[in-house]
């Protein structure tokens, strides 16, 4: 057990782990992750089996990678604890008795005599040091006075705090990995949907798309209400970068679309020989409508929002955007099909009609509407609070470690035949030049003072 702890408290292990994790992470960016087996076979041939077996294709979620991160966390934890306790002892219960020769052996030191009594020298030194924001501890023993003055002591713990932050982040990542979940909800205006694993429902009041002047999408906005027992509790307009949070569930604007399965269509009939005649009919998919003219019934069998003929010469839709809406129209008279074919909203003269019986009628697709739905991504991630706490702790630690340098001055006051002898040494963690000039400043002004 002891040797195991010694193994995990080694900084060399940390360095080896950092190198291995770095190399593994690089590998994961070179091999495309989480693709289909067919794609790996095409790419790597016979090696694809080995790669999949070694979880190289799902590297960051593989057992061995997570295991590495786990060992790394353990290493950080034990290393930090190992260093923390002697450091804490030094800070909280410092030794308040120093040897003269030890102080003089330190690079930054000073020694001088002054015609001061012991008490007034203690007062003078204390005043000077506290004016420079040092906190002072005093110990009197055997006629000597020992002073320990320190400031920015928290800087000593910078690296420990960084490690603590990292551990909080890793802990948060474990929580996220175990218990976070996300789903996509497609919701149309006015629709109410239950939320998975939650005791509330979600209602979409309004959905709109905003465009830039050049036609590209500026933003999608969904006005969502949270309903509890069918009572609206909270309403917020969700847009990209502005999610809605409620009870730990977060709702994001992630996509949008139209319910093209249930369009409402508007067909206009005109007469070739009589331009003044028009008849407009509203109908849904599959619905048969009787025209006022000539005992004809029409119905729409298919609708596509973005008409295209694919390589097999079949009708398909290129996208879900209404770029080239088209309907397949059929006309019936006395129970007999008299015409059928595609008509296009944007190309009214380009109808492809097959007629069994000649009619004087021409049809146009004038309107096509479908409920627009908003794609909302729902996620619940209990790990995320640990992540943010970890980030704050991490940054605090980095600031302490790199910009908050602890300084320590040790002083012995001794009575030497009516005069006070002052022996001092100073120690700074970093930025030693700045400390040296402060140290010299302290003792210059002490010599000058009365």
């Amino acid at each position, binding site marked *: 057990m002891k040797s195991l702890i010694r193994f995990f408290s080694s900084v060399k292990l940390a360095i080896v782990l950092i190198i291995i994790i*770095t190399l593994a*992470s*690089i590998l*994961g*960016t070179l091999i495309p992750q989480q693709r289909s087996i067919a794609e790996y076979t095409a790419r790597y041939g016979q090696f694809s089996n080995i790669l999949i077996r070694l979880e190289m294709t799902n590297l960051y979620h593989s057992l061995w990678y997570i295991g590495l991160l786990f060992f790394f966390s353990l290493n950080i934890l034990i290393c930090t604890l190992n260093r923390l306790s002697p450091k804490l002892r030094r800070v909280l219960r410092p030794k308040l008795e120093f040897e003269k020769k030890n102080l003089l052996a330190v690079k930054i030191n000073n020694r001088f005599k002054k015609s001061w009594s012991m008490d007034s020298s203690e007062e003078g030194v204390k005043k000077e040091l506290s004016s420079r924001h040092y906190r002072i501890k005093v110990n009197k023993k055997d006629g000597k006075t020992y002073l320990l003055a320190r400031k920015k002591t928290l800087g000593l713990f910078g690296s420990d705090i960084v490690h603590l932050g990292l551990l909080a982040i890793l802990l948060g*990542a474990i929580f996220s990995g175990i218990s976070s979940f*996300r789903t996509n909800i497609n919701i149309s205006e006015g629709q109410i949907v239950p939320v998975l694993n939650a005791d509330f429902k979600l209602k979409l009041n309004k959905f709109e798309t905003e465009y830039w002047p050049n036609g590209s999408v500026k933003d999608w906005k969904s006005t969502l209400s949270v309903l509890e027992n069918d009572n609206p509790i909270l309403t917020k307009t969700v847009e990209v*970068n502005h999610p809605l949070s409620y009870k730990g569930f977060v709702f994001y604007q992630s996509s949008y679309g139209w319910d093209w399965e249930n369009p409402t269509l508007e067909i206009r009939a005109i007469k070739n020989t009589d331009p003044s005649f028009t008849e407009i009919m509203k109908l849904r998919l599959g619905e048969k409508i009787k025209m006022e003219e000539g005992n004809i019934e029409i119905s729409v069998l298919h609708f596509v929002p973005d008409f295209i003929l694919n390589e097999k010469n079949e009708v398909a839709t290129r996208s879900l955007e209404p770029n080239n809406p088209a309907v397949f129209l059929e006309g019936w008279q006395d129970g007999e099909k008299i015409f059928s074919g595609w008509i296009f909203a944007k190309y009214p003269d380009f109808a492809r009609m097959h007629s069994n019986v000649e009619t004087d009628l021409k049809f146009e697709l004038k309107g096509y509407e479908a409920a627009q739905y908003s794609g909302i991504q729902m996620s619940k*991630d209990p790990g995320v609070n640990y992540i943010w706490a970890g980030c704050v702790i991490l940054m605090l630690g*980095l600031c302490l470690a790199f910009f908050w340098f602890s300084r320590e001055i040790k002083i012995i006051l001794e009575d030497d035949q009516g005069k006070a002898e002052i022996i001092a040494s100073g120690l700074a963690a970093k930025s030693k030049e700045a400390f040296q000039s402060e140290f010299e400043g302290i003792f210059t002004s002490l010599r000058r003072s009365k």
Partner: protein
Amino acid sequence: MNESTLILITFILYILAAFFYFIFLFAKREKSANTGFRIACLGLLIHTLALIWRTIESGHAPFTNMYESLSFLAWASILAYVIIEGKYKIRKAGPYFMLIVIGIMALASSPLMPKEATPLVPALQSYWLWLHVSVTLLGEAFFAFAFITSILYLIADSREKKGIDKGSGLTSEKLDSISYRCVAVGFPLFTLGGLVFGMVWAYKAWGTYWSWDPKETWSLITWFVFALYLHTRIVLGWKGRRSAYIVILGFLAALFTYFGVNYLLASLHSYT
């Protein structure tokens, strides 16, 4: 007068600054270095105006495509240089650093980079764009300076070992220490801007703070390399050559995060 004229003037000023720095380097005239520094400061000022101009004209942060972010990186690098030069007076690094800035500016001005400001896709419309990109690039500018001083260290070190010391006052020991100090500023900035702000923004825009996207992974890799640098240096006491090699490796990783991922790997971050 418009933004591209201002950028052109900036570019010319940077080239002029580099020219005076090189006169200083070869003719050993302190005065030329001062002139070079002043011209670089003027360039920074005009560059700042150009960035403000672009921000007002496009209505969004001046780093949403490759051209803009390169121009901003050059600006951040000069800013970092002015800060470091003001603090440590290391003129000898000036000429080489100016070369890097000129390289970035040349790349930004090349016809390969589309320059027109396009409207922002919804995901980029966030104040986190400002925080995430500007702080990250500033951190990377400090890494760039650490990279230059590390290379200068390697040169100075091998010269000193051979006994050729030109006595320019910039010893290998000082270069090593400046390189460390640049990392000491760059590392917290990169952590804050690249990783922390990046995670917060990803959580707000995509609904997950980390998705192992290649750009995310590579910034983590960069972070690991500099963490390695700090641990080997502070705990194991590595200094000098080995430290310099790690800084060079770290900067190359940062460079790959910035460029390589966009052009070589498929990423959610491909906004160029």
